[in-house]
């Protein structure tokens, strides 16, 4: 087949033909919108399912308990919803609606679990941490038979937590970050070996890391229980986490930036220091903070290597030192109501620390790599304006 008529294309400057009517604006189909009659059918099915299960449960079957009721009600809701949609539309739509209901239930269950855990801990323990004794007193002068009014708190556990976490950060962050820089920026065959080993070390269960420090540091070297041992165990746990997270962040820095810097004549170290690290700064901070959040709640290593102790111990290099998770572990089943409520207070404190770390990570790491803060952008804009000559009128 040959083309008989040459195709005439309007040039780029040609105005659009006036006679052609503009096609009407098509409204975008909102895929995620739920139609109102669908909501009605779903609500109806919900009420019907609940009522049906109530009849079945309260009147016919000889069973009891809210767990069974909920499951029966949910299953009958799904069945009724499917039947109603099938009658209204067709089989395919019925399958779609039921799948949508199941998927939404999964998300609701997950959110519900988080909300219940955090809410329950706060309800049980928040009253306790309003009492300032909690942050100033220790358990030293308290036993289960103490008279009422002896001041008792978790100050020693809070101090221990922060000191042990500090040691872990000091040890693991430089090593982890530099190892990640080596893997991503220097590279080579040896880097692959390091990557495989770091990957493998993330599989070490925290209790095994604790056992290693216990057998090697506490017993073989004869150092005894101390906060330093706990910091060591935590850093064994934390270093692979920081290293992997840092590597992911560095990998997100666009190669074009590195090449541009090298093309301008900068050396490798200058490129890293002036281009790669500043670009990845927020991600690096997030990696470190998430590493902290991961280890601050570790109980088993502290339990194995730092022991307990009821009094304050500021010195992490000698003597037993407790931490918040260990404090909870010791006191949650205690026969004394006072210690029980202290365990709940410690849970709230621990949760608060995690929440603060988490929010910090969100605030700092909310931006992608290379995206600057609003203030930085404004400053850059101002300096650019001062460089351009003022337009003369």
């Amino acid at each position: 087949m040959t083309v008989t008529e040459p195709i005439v294309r309007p040039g780029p400057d040609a105005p659009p033909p006036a006679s052609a009517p503009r096609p009407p604006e098509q409204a975008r189909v909102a895929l995620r919108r739920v139609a109102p009659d669908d909501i009605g059918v779903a609500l109806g099915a919900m009420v019907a399912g609940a009522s049906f299960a109530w009849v079945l449960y309260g009147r016919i079957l000889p069973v009891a308990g809210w767990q069974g009721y909920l499951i029966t009600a949910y299953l009958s809701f799904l069945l009724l919803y499917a039947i109603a949609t099938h009658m209204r539309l067709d089989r395919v739509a019925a399958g779609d609606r039921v799948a949508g209901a199941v998927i939404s239930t999964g998300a609701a269950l997950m959110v519900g679990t988080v909300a219940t855990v955090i809410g329950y801990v706060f309800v049980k323990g928040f009253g306790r941490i309003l009492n300032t004794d909690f942050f100033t007193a220790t358990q030293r002068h308290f036993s289960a038979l103490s008279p009422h009014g002896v001041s008792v708190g978790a100050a020693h556990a809070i101090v221990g937590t922060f000191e042990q976490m500090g040691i872990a950060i000091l040890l693991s962050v430089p090593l982890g970050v530099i190892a990640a820089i080596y893997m991503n920026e220097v590279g080579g065959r040896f880097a692959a070996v390091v990557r495989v080993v770091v990957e493998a070390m993330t599989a070490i269960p925290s209790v095994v890391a604790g056992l290693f420090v216990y057998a090697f540091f506490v017993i073989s070297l004869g150092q005894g229980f101390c906060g330093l041992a706990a910091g060591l165990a935590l850093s064994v746990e934390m270093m692979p986490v920081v290293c992997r997270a840092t590597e992911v962040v560095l990998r997100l820095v666009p190669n074009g930036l590195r090449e541009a810097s090298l093309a301008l004549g900068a050396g490798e170290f200058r490129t890293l220091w002036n281009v790669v690290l500043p670009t990845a700064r927020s991600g690096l901070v997030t990696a470190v903070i998430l590493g902290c959040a991961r280890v601050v709640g570790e109980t088993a290593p502290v339990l194995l290597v730092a022991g307990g102790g009821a009094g304050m111990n500021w010195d992490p290099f000698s003597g037993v030192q407790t931490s918040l998770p260990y404090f909870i572990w010791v006191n949650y089943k205690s026969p004394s109501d006072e210690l029980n409520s202290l365990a709940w207070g410690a849970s709230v404190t621990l949760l608060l620390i995690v929440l603060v770390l988490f929010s910090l990570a969100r605030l700092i790491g909310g931006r992608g790599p290379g995206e600057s803060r609003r203030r930085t952008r404004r400053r850059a804009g101002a300096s650019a304006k001062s460089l351009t000559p003022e337009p003369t009128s």
Partner: protein
Amino acid sequence: MAHPTVFAPESPELADRPRRIVVRRTRADHVFRWTTRGVAMLVLALLAAIGGYLLYQGSGALDRAGWGFLTEDAWEPKGGTFGVRGLLTGTVLVAIVALIVAVPIALTAALYITEFAPRRLRGVLTSIVDLMAAVPSIIYGIFGFFVLQPQLIPVSRWLATNFDFLPIFEIRTIDVKARFVDSQFSSSLFISGVVVSTMVIPICCAVSREVFGQAPVGEKEGALALGATRWGVIRAVVLPFGRGGMIGGVMLGLGRALGETIAVAMIISFNTDFSFRVLDGQGSTISSLIVLKYGEADTESISALMAAGLALFVLTLAVNTVAGVLVARSRSGKSTEI
């Protein structure tokens, strides 16, 4: 990654070849290279030392126990009889129960986040998943002990009375007809597994969400244009595309469940007998063994615990490696380009 040295191929017939690039590094660059290499070697040495030490310490115990290490149930290192058969079964059973509870919730939540949630809600839900992963396991443990356990006891009892023909739900130590039988259903492997599932959900959900989010938009729109419903799109495009990552996420969750220590130790009533009965109100896992028995500080006990820890490490390492390979294969694009 910087590979500044480029060697031109020797090809005489080409008139103009790219010139040979010679890289002369400054002193700062040499220092930088050797410092990072040294630190990386240090990290490698440290990690290898840990593995080697575990192996060295554990091998003494493995020598003494021989093959009995895998077939023995009792844990009496001083008497020379100890093994991980009961412990390993307990560990695996807890992990299986946790996965059965967690995987449906995690996968449906991940699908909701990527396919159903409005844009604004998507960010919030993703944050909630990450927050759930950041909550310490002792908090989940104390929650499980005080809140979940009382609610799960009637469920255990119902399973035990109605499904006792299945060996896994059989009960031997509890008389169901006795009065006040409910409290005997506490502290079981089943309840520990459900508590551990709260820690598996966020890991599994985060990985699957990431993989589902990478499903090709063109194919999704194509399916919609052909008249598929949302569920049709999920079944035809999203799930097949994300299968590898989904399995990888589940296995990462399994690795976490196998190593979980403190929440299990808070719930379980410790007994190393070999049994598949998850409702029987007792049981044991390797990590809870280490936490509960480390105080027996003679060298033989420690070395036996090391051997048990080594077994756990090998198990989680195998699971995590397979998971890592699966997840990495389903991800595309190693680095970002501009």
